[in-house]
């Protein structure tokens, strides 16, 4: 309802009064807020719950808004206070805007139109379902002070622990070493003293009969020599064989990548499904290294890292890696647009099968329904990706011998499973029984 004014003058004074009133109000409010912050939190709840606000913010607003950074929409830290300060707009206006921004723009509100134009003429989605309480919760969340990287401090503390552990270990070791040195020294001293006593007392120490030294005896015993040579050769052969068999096996290969991509953060902390990024694993022989546009699905809005950090991997470090991504894909974060300057990332390939071995991801992922971790290990815990399995033929074959074929609900298998399981007299067929050990299944 518009309030009809009696006259223009009336209107003006009224407005002025309102402004003065509000200014006063705000000062008092601020003061009380500081007091409240300092002494009490219970009262805060009346103004809105920032915890509930955060949840609401993340579900409704985060797609387009950040607290401290312009995105699709403006940065929202202290939005209420800022609007009140700079534009003289109150919560009522904000509520109206949140519930129906298009309506506000249509009504010709100057600031609304300005914002609308500034952000490329895209109206904000209307949220009529948000209650007053919800809005006040969200605003309370936006009004929270920016935390100055508390995570980093915590991380530092965490990181310090293993260091001190290491230090104590060396200390203990050093102590032990000194102890042993003292003991050894004491023994020598004791021995020396005893000999001196013996000398003094004229006791001739029994030098023993002239026995042949043990090595000479060993050399003279040809049987023993033969046995030990054989043993040595066998052992040598064993180790040489072991060495040669691991040539070309790159288990544990953990190369430095051009961008430090942490599977731990993505697949572990954030629980992103492997196949969201490695989508071709479902249909193709290669799992595919995700193209950078897939990264940008999320990283358009995730421009900084706010998770746990360590001394080695600090927030700055991770933020720097995100910058590297932006640089590669040609994303101008400030302007929120692509520059078109693309620099493809040259990842170092970790899992390298030789060309003569054919492996198909979709066979294992989609048909067999295997977890990626079966072969790739606990990727969700890997800060740096490494090769978990040896990827040798023996390793493949062993799994094929043990793994049962997932035949349920797959009409392809119905007939062959029925016939083969009868033939082999088993309930469930292994991949090997299905023909998974034939040379030509992987080598052509």
């Amino acid at each position, binding site marked *: 309802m518009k309030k009809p004014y009696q006259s223009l003058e009336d209107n003006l004074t009224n407005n002025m009064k309102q402004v003065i009133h509000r200014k006063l109000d705000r000062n008092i409010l601020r003061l009380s807020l500081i007091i409240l912050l300092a002494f009490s939190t219970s009262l805060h709840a009346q103004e809105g719950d920032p915890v509930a606000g955060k949840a609401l913010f993340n579900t409704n607003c985060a797609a387009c808004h950040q607290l401290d950074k312009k995105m699709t929409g403006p940065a929202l830290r202290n939005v209420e206070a800022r609007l009140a300060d700079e534009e003289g707009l109150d919560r009522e206006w904000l509520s109206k805007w949140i519930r129906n921004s298009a309506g506000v723009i249509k009504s010709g509100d100057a600031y609304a139109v300005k914002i609308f134009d500034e952000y490329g003429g895209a109206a904000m989605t209307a949220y009529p379902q948000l209650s007053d309480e919800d809005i006040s919760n969200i605003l309370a969340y936006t009004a929270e002070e920016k935390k100055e990287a508390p995570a980093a401090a915590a991380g530092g503390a965490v990181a310090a622990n293993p260091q001190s552990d290491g230090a104590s270990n060396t200390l203990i070791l050093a102590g032990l070493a000194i102890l042993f040195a003292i003991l050894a020294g004491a023994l020598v001293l004791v021995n020396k003293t005893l000999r001196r006593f013996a000398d003094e007392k004229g006791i001739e120490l029994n030098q023993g009969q002239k026995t042949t030294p043990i090595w000479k005896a060993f050399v003279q015993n040809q049987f023993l020599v033969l046995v030990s040579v054989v043993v040595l050769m066998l052992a040598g052969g064993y180790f040489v064989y072991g060495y040669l068999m691991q040539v070309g096996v790159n288990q544990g290969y953990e190369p430095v990548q051009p961008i430090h991509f942490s599977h731990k953060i993505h697949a572990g902390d954030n629980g992103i499904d492997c196949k969201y990024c490695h989508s071709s694993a479902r249909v193709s022989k290669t799992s595919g290294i995700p*193209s950078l546009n897939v990264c940008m699905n999320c990283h358009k809005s995730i421009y900084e890292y706010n998770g746990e950090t360590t001394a080695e991997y600090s927030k700055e470090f991770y933020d720097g890696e995100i910058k590297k991504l932006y640089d590669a894909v040609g994303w101008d974060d400030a302007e929120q647009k692509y520059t078109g300057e693309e620099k493809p990332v040259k990842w170092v390939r970790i899992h390298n099968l030789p060309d003569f071995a054919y492996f198909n991801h979709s066979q294992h992922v989609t048909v067999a329904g295997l977890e990626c971790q079966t072969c790739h290990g606990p990727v969700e815990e890997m800060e740096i990706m490494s090769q978990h399995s040896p990827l040798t033929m023996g390793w493949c074959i062993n799994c094929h011998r043990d793994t049962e074929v997932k035949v349920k609900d797959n009409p392809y298998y119905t007939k062959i499973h029925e016939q083969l399981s009868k*033939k082999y007299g088993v309930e469930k067929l292994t991949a090997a029984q299905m023909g998974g050990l034939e040379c*030509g299944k992987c*080598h052509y």
Partner: protein
Amino acid sequence: MSSNKKYWKSVEELNENSSIVETLKQNEFVNEIPTDEFLGDKDKLEGSSTTRRDFLKYVGFSTAAASLAACEGPVIKSIPYVVQPETIIPGVANYYATTVADGFDFASVLVKTREGRPIKIENNSLATTDGGANARVNASVLGLYDSLRVKTPMKGESEISWSTFNSETSQKLEQLAGAGKQIVLLTQTYASPSTSKLISEFKEKYSTANHVVYDAVSESAALDAFQAKYNERGLASYNFSLATTIVSVAADILGDWQGGGFDAGYSQSRVPVNGKMSRHIQFEANMSLAGANADKRVAVTPSQQKLVLAKLHSLIVGSAFSKSLPAHVEKAVQAAASQLKKAGSTGVLVTGVNDVNAQTVVLEINEALNSKAFDPKTPIKTRQGNDKAVKTLVADMKAGKVGAIIMSGVNPLYTLPNATEFAEGLKKTELSVTFSMKVDETASVTQYVAAAPHNLESWGDVELRKGHFGLIQPTIRPLFNTRQFQDALLMWNGNDVVYSDYIKTLWKNDILNGASYNQALHDGVFVSKGSSVIGDTTVETEENLETPSSNAASVLAASVAPKGMELTLYTKVGMGDGQQANNPWLQEFPDPITRTSWDNYLTVSAADAKELGLENKHVATGGLDGSYADITVNGKSITVPVIIQPGQAKGSVGLALGYGRTAGLKDEMKTGVNGYPLYNNFNNVQSVTVAKASGMHEFACVQLQNTLMGREDIIKETTLEIFNTKDKKHWNAVPVVSLNHQETPVTSPEVDLWDEFDRSIGHHFNLSIDLNACTGCGACVIACHAENNVPVVGKEEIRRSRDMHWLRIDRYYSSEDTFDEDITKKTEFSGLFGDKGSLSGFGELEVAADNPQVVFQPVMCQHCNHAPCETVCPVAATSHGRQGQNHMAYNRCVGTRYCANNCPYKVRRFNWFLYNGNDEFDYHMNDDLGRMVVNPDVTVRSRGVMEKCSMCIQMTQKTILDAKRDGRVIKDGEFQTACSSACSNGAMVFGDINDKESKVAKLLEDDRMYHLLEYVGTKPNVQYHTKVRNTSEA
């Protein structure tokens, strides 16, 4: 005591105080050793800080480092897309429908692309016209990755930009048009509605413009005859599947005759169904594919061919004919005529005689027969060249009347018989432009070379037959800075539209009749139901037309044989008109008839060879040496090597076009001699004198055992009469062996050395090859190369019989007139000597007959269930799969070659060298560009391993995986191999015999089915179907 002995080194030592002894004690070599002499530069050596010890240290260290480094794997980089195209999934192939239209070959095809690069060409099953890709079309994908392609437009020797090209040429064109000078567009046959429209717009803009269509291998006579009769420029189309009697006079209906593409229909009529199959009679001079497949082949010289036609005309239509033919020809013509008349509307006559009267006679006879196979209503549009116009053009150029010549898709300096005159005329033009992929013979002398894209990088449309359209779409972004001829036309016409949009608009307005353009693009083909508004309805003006005589038959009958011998110029299945000469696949592709690769040659009959003293000698397993001969046509003389060709008509010789290229190709590909200079008046028949020249030419052949020598187990054949009337055991008996003096069939388990393995569960693959439907065209050979990364080894290696073809098509001649007589002769041998002695008899059987019967037999690994190769491999590198395939694990193979020695079919191939990335084998696998054609699903083999046909296990595995992923049962027809899917004739059928409803399972039960060398007991998984010849003269 030995210890008391003292040895004196010299008498000087007796002197106690000798200084010499003292000096020698200190220094063994008193004089300095003359090391300078062999160490050279003393200053440099002294200046060097490297001592001998240092040197040894370095050697030791580097050896150790090298061996350590060898244990360390290389760092492999993976570079994903920045923005991945939605349609591309790495590792999954995409297929696009397009049309190959290079002016000589036209085919609707599917292109298989992997990660965005085309790697293989396949048949488009939606196409009703030209849906079968021949060997050249299959190989054309390699042309895309030709390292000698023109990479950017050029002016003379220097590279220029397209904007320079555009501005300079359009300025010059306008200037020339203003001055009233003739502007000529000399192009290949495009048969493209949009290009025709563009050219007519070009003519509107430049009033002096003229368009000349030039086919290197002319069909002008047939076109002129058709136009004279039906008032439309085209070629009558034939559907041989509707014919019961096919009579061909010098028409290679299974080769490149009238554009080719008739073999699928032909093969359909050749397979006996309900005891019926077509009968094919061929009159010809050279041994062609059609002749080799014919039931009756009559060798007649080119001049007699005209008489044969006249005689046929007189016998069927009833014109007068008084000339006499040789008795056996006369008899054959009588028989052919009576059979044609009897067949009536199911009979058809075709001719390849390049004479307008001969062509007219054929049109008349087919009309008279009311032949169903003959279709003048939807004429073939893929040949439009006009000889007269080309001749006029050359004369005009020489006279200096032509101001500008713009060429596209043609190479007249190579293909014109009067190329020197053309070159002379070219110098008189003020502007010469050629759109070319190579700096070929023509491009190297024109002012501008406009870098043209490959067919697979281009847009376009084709009207293959009237109302039957095909669309060309790019399957890869242009590799180089190239532009199409049509783009340039748009630019010269001042039209800003992109060519692809131009096509779209044209199609929407004039062709599609409201049908969806996207659907047409998806299908690659479109058949207009009603009469389309547009089509290429070019009608040549009267002056450029060769008009047939009103009484064509009598003119034909009056033709006289020239003096001397008659030369027939033809095109080979492998090389065509020669535009793909830089394609190593095609160079190494053995000719189906002569089985010779890397060459062309003069084919001479045995009788003529004897008269002229020409000879062929077998010098090694793959080595054939042939005499050289000087041949002279019209004063022009060239020296060519000779191959003695069974079946060549006496008094005639043959020479293939398409060889002897000199520019725009690698040295290795500069093979053979150029026959075009002899192609006077665009007539493929020339009067010629042949004389022996000195020296012998080294040919590389893949098969020198030319005859079957009565070995009926290799190729079984019978006649239609016996096939229809007698039991299977008379014509396709299972071989028997003696067990306890009882005849026991080899298929019985009692006589088997091996235990039977139960293969009834899961898939069991079989490949069936019908010898009746196989024409020997060789499309499967090239498809196999492309699919399986088969290397090219070069002429020298082929001569050492080290060819790597996984799939070969054996060709056998009969030694007597028929194979039947061979068998009779063999069985009648008695004793070693005498008339029927086997010693001389087998010698005779090695020699092919003058006009032999011919059979083709594709042979690849037979995937024996009881494979001899598997049992002898010391490292178990080759083993058997449950699905019937004989596996080959390359990484396990150590190269003993025992398996190849033990293989009764000789299908295993050994990698004597590393054929990729090796400068000694400078073919496509030696450069990065050429390697882009490699199929990523198949290992590229290395030196020292054995390889062979895998029955395309990568394809069967993919089919199975797709079904597993979709959770469905596999339907018949889904399983394919590269060869079976390339075979448009239906000769090769692949599938799962455990699926009892499948085609191949039914073929296994067919009476005609037999296995190759069945008596060996190998139980192959490749079936052959007995060849039936329709020798019954009706």
